[in-house]
């Protein structure tokens, strides 16, 4: 097989993949926009069921995790393996905490009998059903992407420890960072649209 290294090409490829994620989630935002335009009041009332505090905490920690992964790249560029591992560790920890928060949030909803399209939900109006359908589906798909991110960070941390990612070759880390920022970007838009409708 051909050995040919092109970091710029790999980065371009990663950005192209991010574009697909943008369109994937983007269409869900279109669905949200359509149904919110049809049921503005119901969405507003349903939105108040969501816990702003947990939502804000999740937003804050995810933003911080974007910072830590960006800093880990700086660390690798400076050859500071120890710091890179610390920062990546924090990023990974934040990702796990995010999912734990989600688990409790969803758990609370399930206790009300709110399941996607079922349970107590089916008794309520169209707008409410659609709002919670979108909430579960979009935050669920987002959570799946966080899970994938966790997998990527575990891999990257292992590679850094084995010196396979290092000062002269860190494109894997950069691309994982790009992926993680995308996950953050999606949440930046999800947060106000679900938690802050008043």
């Amino acid at each position, binding site marked *: 097989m051909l050995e040919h290294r092109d970091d710029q090409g790999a980065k371009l490829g990663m950005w192209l993949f991010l574009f697909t994620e*943008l369109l994937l989630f983007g269409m869900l935002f279109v669905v949200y926009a359509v149904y919110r335009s049809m049921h503005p009041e119901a969405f507003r009332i349903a939105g108040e069921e969501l816990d702003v505090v947990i939502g804000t905490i999740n937003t804050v920690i995810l933003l911080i995790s974007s910072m830590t992964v960006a800093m880990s790249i700086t660390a690798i560029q400076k050859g500071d393996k120890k710091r890179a591992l610390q920062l990546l560790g924090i990023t990974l920890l934040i990702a796990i905490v995010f999912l734990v928060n989600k688990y409790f949030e969803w758990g609370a909803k399930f206790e009300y009998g709110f399941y996607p399209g079922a349970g107590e939900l089916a008794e309520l109006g169209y707008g409410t059903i659609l709002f919670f359908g979108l909430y579960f589906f979009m935050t669920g798909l987002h959570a799946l992407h966080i899970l994938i991110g966790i997998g990527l960070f575990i891999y990257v941390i292992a590679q850094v420890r084995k010196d396979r990612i290092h000062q002269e070759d860190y494109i894997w880390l950069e691309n994982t960072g790009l992926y993680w*920022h995308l996950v953050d970007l999606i949440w930046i838009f999800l947060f106000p649209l679900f938690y802050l409708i008043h």
Partner: protein
Amino acid sequence: MSEEKTHIVPYKTQVAVVAVLLVLTAVTVAVTRLEFGTLNTLVAMLIAGIKAVIVMAWYMHLKYEKALLPMLVTGVIIVFLLVLFVTFFDYSYR
């Protein structure tokens, strides 16, 4: 590629960026508690857009890349917004 000088973003810059992002988050939460009516969503989306641009420019390095990448990102966002816009030709006028 190894011939390009890699630009290293200083730690300080990255911390400064998160500070701005956190302030903007606080602003979003505060603003939506006030009553602007339908303007609420617009303001919230605008702030989210600014946060997104900041993340893309500094954390995702677009500010330091060659012109191609930022142009492509802009183009893709425009295509997506146009799709949203055209979809509402149907929904806004039923």
